[in-house]
């Protein structure tokens, strides 16, 4: 990225303060934070709006949703990729880890198809230079699935893979600790009979016994020597955390209890929770509230999960509801996830960092994204 960009009359959210003043950017990199009172040549006056670092999203399922916009509708993969990218950019997300599922149970066959497509279209779009945000892959590996290792194998050396998480959606534990909730969710509006549900639960438990441990070990072996960050998913017990730590996992994604979150911090892991959980004041599956974790200091980063705009909204919600300072709240969606994803070149407004920037105006309680820049170039 070449050229110069200057902003003035901004409230700049740095890592530890909100500074009034301006910014000078050249060649896609922040050169200087200019204090209020000094005139900057040819600057864009942002009218007192906030300027934040571009948001860093570690886990979004939004791409998969674009492939299948309605239950019976498949959308062309390249068009789906662009639609997803546009939604990320307009939500202020400049770096995104697209989560794609590796491993499936029956009824999830489309996920295998989505996986291949996701990886292909992401590569193609990157080559064509048609993406606004900076995209990476997050492989979510379902360890109790019979197919997970086979599916993972060819992906090992694909470009763009930067984050790998282990998950296990077997009923009766983790996200589905509450078996009734699992049964309700899978009842599918009455399409599954009680006997079918019994059989489903039985089969899942059987598969977990057969595969979960074996596949975790097999995947860990294949991960040796790869330059990726590892995350565990839906940790519920101290045991889950200890297992993750022993395996070299550094991120706990969506822990379901305060106990697991506290254990994660004790062991030096970082914690990601869903921003929709912050906005809705609780988890959609009845697990620990992200606001409670933020209140007890056990929250490092947020992910937009299934609502892209929730990431920015959650920042201001953390300020209003938990009493965090704006820089601390903003760090949960910028500096902290950047570091967790292995980036040192972005995630904060400071000289030398990438000029991934977000102009935000607060209207009432609601933050509106006015402009988004990636490496100094306007993308939304």
């Amino acid at each position, binding site marked *: 990225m070449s050229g110069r960009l200057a902003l003035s009359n901004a409230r700049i959210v740095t890592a530890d303060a909100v500074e009034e003043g301006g910014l000078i950017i050249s060649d896609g990199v922040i050169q200087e934070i200019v204090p209020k009172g000094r005139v900057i040549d040819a600057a864009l006056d942002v009218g007192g709006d906030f300027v934040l670092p571009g948001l860093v999203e570690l886990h979004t399922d939004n791409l998969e949703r674009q492939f299948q*916009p*309605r239950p*019976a*509708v*498949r*959308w*062309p993969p*390249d*068009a789906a990729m*662009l*639609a997803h990218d*546009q*939604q990320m*950019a*307009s*939500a202020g997300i400049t770096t995104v880890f697209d989560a794609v599922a590796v491993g499936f149970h029956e009824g999830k066959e489309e996920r295998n198809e989505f996986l291949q497509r996701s990886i292909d279209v992401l590569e193609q779009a990157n080559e*064509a*230079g*048609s993406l606004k945000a900076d995209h990476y892959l997050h492989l979510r590996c379902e360890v109790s699935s019979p197919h997970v290792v086979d599916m993972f194998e060819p992906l090992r050396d694909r470009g763009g893979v930067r984050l790998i998480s282990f998950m296990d959606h077997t009923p009766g534990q983790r996200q589905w600790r509450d078996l009734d909730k699992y049964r309700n969710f899978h009842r599918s*509006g*009455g*399409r599954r009979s009680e006997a079918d549900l019994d059989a489903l639960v039985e089969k899942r438990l059987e598969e977990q016994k057969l595969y979960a441990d074996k596949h975790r070990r097999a995947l860990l072996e294949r991960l040796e020597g790869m330059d990726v960050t590892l995350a565990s998913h839906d940790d519920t017990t101290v045991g889950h955390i200890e297992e993750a730590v022993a395996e070299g996992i550094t991120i706990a994604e969506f822990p379901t209890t305060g106990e697991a979150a506290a254990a994660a911090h004790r062991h030096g892991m970082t914690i990601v929770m869903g921003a*929709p959980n912050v*906005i*809705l004041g609780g988890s*959609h599956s009845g697990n620990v509230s992200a606001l409670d974790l933020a209140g007890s200091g056990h929250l490092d980063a947020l992910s937009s999960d*299934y*609502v*892209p*705009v929730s990431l920015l*909204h959650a920042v201001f919600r953390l300020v209003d509801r938990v009493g965090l300072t704006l820089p601390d709240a903003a760090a949960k969606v910028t500096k902290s996830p950047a570091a967790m994803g292995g980036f040192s070149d972005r995630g904060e407004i400071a000289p030398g960092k990438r000029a991934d920037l977000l102009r935000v105006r607060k*209207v*009432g309680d*609601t933050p*509106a*994204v006015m*402009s988004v820049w990636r490496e100094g170039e*306007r993308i*939304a």
Partner: protein
Amino acid sequence: MDEMLLSNAEIVLADQTMTGGIKITDGKITDIEEGPSSGIDLEGDYLIPGLIDLHTDNLERHYQPRAGVYWDPVNAVIAHDAQVIGSGITTVFDSLTIGVSRGSDQRMAMMGPLCEALAVADSANMVKADHRLHLRCEVNYPHIVQAVDDYLEHPLLSMMSLMDHAPGDRQVPDIEVWRRFHLKLFDMNEAALDRYQEELIQHSKTLSPHHRRKLGEIALAKKLPLASHDDATSAHVEEAADLAAVITEFPTTKTAATRARELDLKVLMGAPNLIRGQSHGGNVAAGDLAMSGLLDILSSDYIPSSMLPAAFRLTEPPFEMNLNDAIRTVTLEPAKAAGLDDRGEIAIGKHADLVRVKLVEGRPLIGAVWQRGVRVA
């Protein structure tokens, strides 16, 4: 006075394309000049009018991002707006369903909060696109006229459409298909479904004609453009024409579209239908209507990002429309049908609602969007 110059663009006018620049003064286009000029260099990219979407269900999807999860309605409007404006849509008719049929009682419950949120977000300038309210009225609903009455003073109300989802007609002519769909989707046994089916058909016979007339009169009195939904027969279109409807939305057969053309109703089809090469409900393909010269307007229906690619698709085989005609299906034609004479084309005096489009490997990518001359995406 706020002035801006855009230069070195392939400017897509209503009936020709020229290389040059335009001048924008206080949000309006004040000059169009061929050849080199000064200003922001668009590097030879296309400059087209902002898209005008007469029918999208996208807002409802943001209000309920997952089954059982309701989002704050104002935030839902903002999320929807970001998606719409990033898709190059500068004027959007948010279609909200009023009147209950099975499965849409949830949608009906969205009406109140979303209508209020739209008004709030619009008046507080939280949104970038120009949002309008499009009331989709289910005419077999017994209380529809009264229900519509509650929204007639809404500040953004700009369009009404009439629909009747009773089985055996229009969108779902095959009752068995309708039954399978409802058995699968709802917790209903055969007997309950029998009763429900009978009730809808009965209401459709006894109530719908009267409701259509009443709502048609309301639209006329309020000077609201009226659309008829899922017309399947010549008689459906004739009935719509009698009510002074100006648009037939998603006609399900070529017969209906042909009759609409004869009666001077504009034919609106979904851009997703054109992109996919088929209707998701198994009805007439938008592409077939385009081939027969019967397609006037494309709307995003349920995928905002589908509109621009669909317009460009019309320039490719087998359609091979010229670019100006193709772009008109998403700009000037919907503007005219909705009675908006201040936008929809790049012409002096019109709103500077503009989209910069670059073709990359034949695919249209949005480089920038201006609303009333202000860059918004």
